[in-house]
């Protein structure tokens, strides 16, 4: 199979930390590959290598068959990058920001202007085209940043956490735009911390943690692997917690946990909830709260790695992948599909 975006044994170290510890991944042409992982997992490092901003210490990365180190120029002429921080010039207007990119890419004045107008229209920024980007809202900046990455009509896109920090409405807007883009045939690598974002946008997902691939598959495969939903039971009386745990564990299996005053368990079987309710009733346990909710990335991680995703600030480069790489126990628990 030919991949439009491909990595083999990618390794990148920053001083002592290993941001990438041998990552293999591939995105088929015309597909969206979701790179899912918590802060510090190495997502940004991977994107920066693909976008020729960093050189790997070992392994290979290829974009459209071109090596990102040897053929960096060829790669640059084909990719669009939208970074984690909206990289627009605050003191330029929307139009000027896009003109700048167009002119740098060798478009003529008129051509660059037309392209800028077209993109601003498409990204619903035409009304603010003449305003300095510093007056834009967060969502508008991201849209402008995305537009800037598209000026050169790249066939391959790198989207590094394109919706982080956006409100739900802006996030939804950006999702619609991204869906339209890939419908046009672009190949994209999308990094995200949000399972539902990868779910909505990606054809395939690679989950990484501490610089290693810990799972891969389609969104459905991953979800069925980890359980799509989570059952939460909080007994009215705290002294019932142990009994509730035992009861839920019997029905749900070994991943049943006690968090504070609540028992949680991943749900794979739709029969679990009624079974638990019946059992609670039979044993006469008063329930304060009983809920079924979608599993969060946190639980996906717990299920995949045996440890919770640590919410650490993701530094721009060094320090990424802050944790100790040797975790033999976790390695054993890793299930690679």
């Amino acid at each position, binding site marked *: 199979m030919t991949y*439009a975006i491909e990595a083999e044994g990618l390794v990148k170290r920053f001083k002592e930390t290993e941001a990438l510890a041998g990552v293999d991944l591939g995105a088929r*042409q*015309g597909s969206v590959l979701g790179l899912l992982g918590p802060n510090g997992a190495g997502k940004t490092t991977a994107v*920066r290598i693909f*976008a*020729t*901003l960093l050189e790997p210490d070992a392994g290979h990365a290829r974009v*459209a*068959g*071109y090596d990102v180190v040897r*053929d*960096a*120029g*060829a*790669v*640059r*002429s*084909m*990719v*669009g*990058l939208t*970074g*984690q*921080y*909206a*990289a*627009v*010039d*605050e*003191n*330029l*207007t929307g139009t*000027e920001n896009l003109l*700048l*990119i167009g*002119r*740098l*890419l*060798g478009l003529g004045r008129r051509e660059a202007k037309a392209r800028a107008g077209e993109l601003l229209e498409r990204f619903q920024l035409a009304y603010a085209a003449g305003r*300095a980007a*510093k007056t834009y809202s967060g969502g508008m900046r991201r849209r402008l*940043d995305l537009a*800037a*990455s598209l000026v*050169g009509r790249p*066939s*391959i896109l790198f989207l590094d956490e394109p919706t982080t920090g956006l409100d739900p409405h802006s996030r939804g807007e950006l999702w619609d735009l991204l869906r339209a883009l890939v*419908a*046009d*045939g*672009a*190949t994209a690598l999308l990094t995200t911390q949000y399972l539902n974002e990868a779910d909505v946008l990606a054809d395939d997902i690679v989950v990484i943690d501490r610089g290693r691939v810990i799972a891969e598959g389609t969104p459905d495969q991953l979800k069925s692997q980890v359980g799509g939903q989570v059952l939460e039971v909080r007994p009215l009386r705290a002294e019932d917690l142990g009994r509730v745990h035992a009861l839920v564990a019997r029905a749900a299996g070994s991943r049943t946990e006690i968090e504070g005053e609540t028992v949680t368990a991943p749900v794979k079987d739709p029969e679990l909830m009624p079974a638990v309710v019946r059992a609670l009733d039979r044993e006469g346990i008063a329930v304060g709260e009983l809920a079924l909710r979608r599993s969060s990335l946190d639980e996906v991680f717990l299920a995949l790695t045996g440890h919770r995703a640590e919410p650490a600030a993701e530094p721009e480069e060094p320090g990424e992948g802050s944790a100790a790489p040797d975790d033999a126990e976790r390695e054993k628990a890793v299930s690679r599909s």
Partner: protein
Amino acid sequence: MTATTLTAPAGASGRVRPLAGLRQTFTMAWRSLVAVKHNPLELVDYSITPIMFVFLFTYVLGGQMAGSPEAYLKYALPGIIVQNTLFMTIYTAMALNTDLTKGVFDRLRSLPIARSAPLIGRITADLAKHLWALLLMIGLGLLLGFRITGGFGGFLLGTLLVMVFAAAVSWTAVLIGMLAGDAEKVQAFGFTLIFPITFTSSAFVQVDTMPGWLQAWSDVNPVSHLSDAFRGLLLGGPVAEPVTWSLVWAAGIALVFYPLAMRAYRAKT
């Protein structure tokens, strides 16, 4: 549905042709200049502050320093311009630092353009701003009674000399901009460095009232040489020695800081 082509456009082997690189540099310079339109604060940096310096030095200090504001202006204007030029190089460092920390350089580097274009473009644009401020101050000086007695040639050569010196110092600014954590640190460091250097020179005063040890420094201080050279060229007078020393200093600064700055730039962007 458009088919995705998987071939790189011709000529995209990684090296950018010199002519294309030059055009990209000018595009980057355009970007720095057009930003002024939307950032009135830059107008303060490059216009109001220079005007304020000229007025303050002339009317507040002039009478005491030289008996009359006009007499002092004649001595101090070239020095004020030199000082202002050096101060303004800090803005180069701040702007580069902002581009670095805000991710603008990442975006630019992911484009198939000459790697030096963002850097040289910024310096080119900032030299244009230096020239603007210099002309503004000369113009104001003329209104307040300053006279260019060294002739038009002296004025042109003096302006050129200040620009050459500013270009050399810009590499120091690039280095600071690349190494500093944020723009505030750039500003703090820059002013802490430039303030004493400019004031311990012959830019504003004749150095013979300074204590001996300070005079010894002032005599080698590049700001003294540049101020004396610019003054000499504008007013007419012996300039061979200060011009030579100014050029030696400019060359020395560029020789030391250009490689360091380029190394930092390549490491960071």
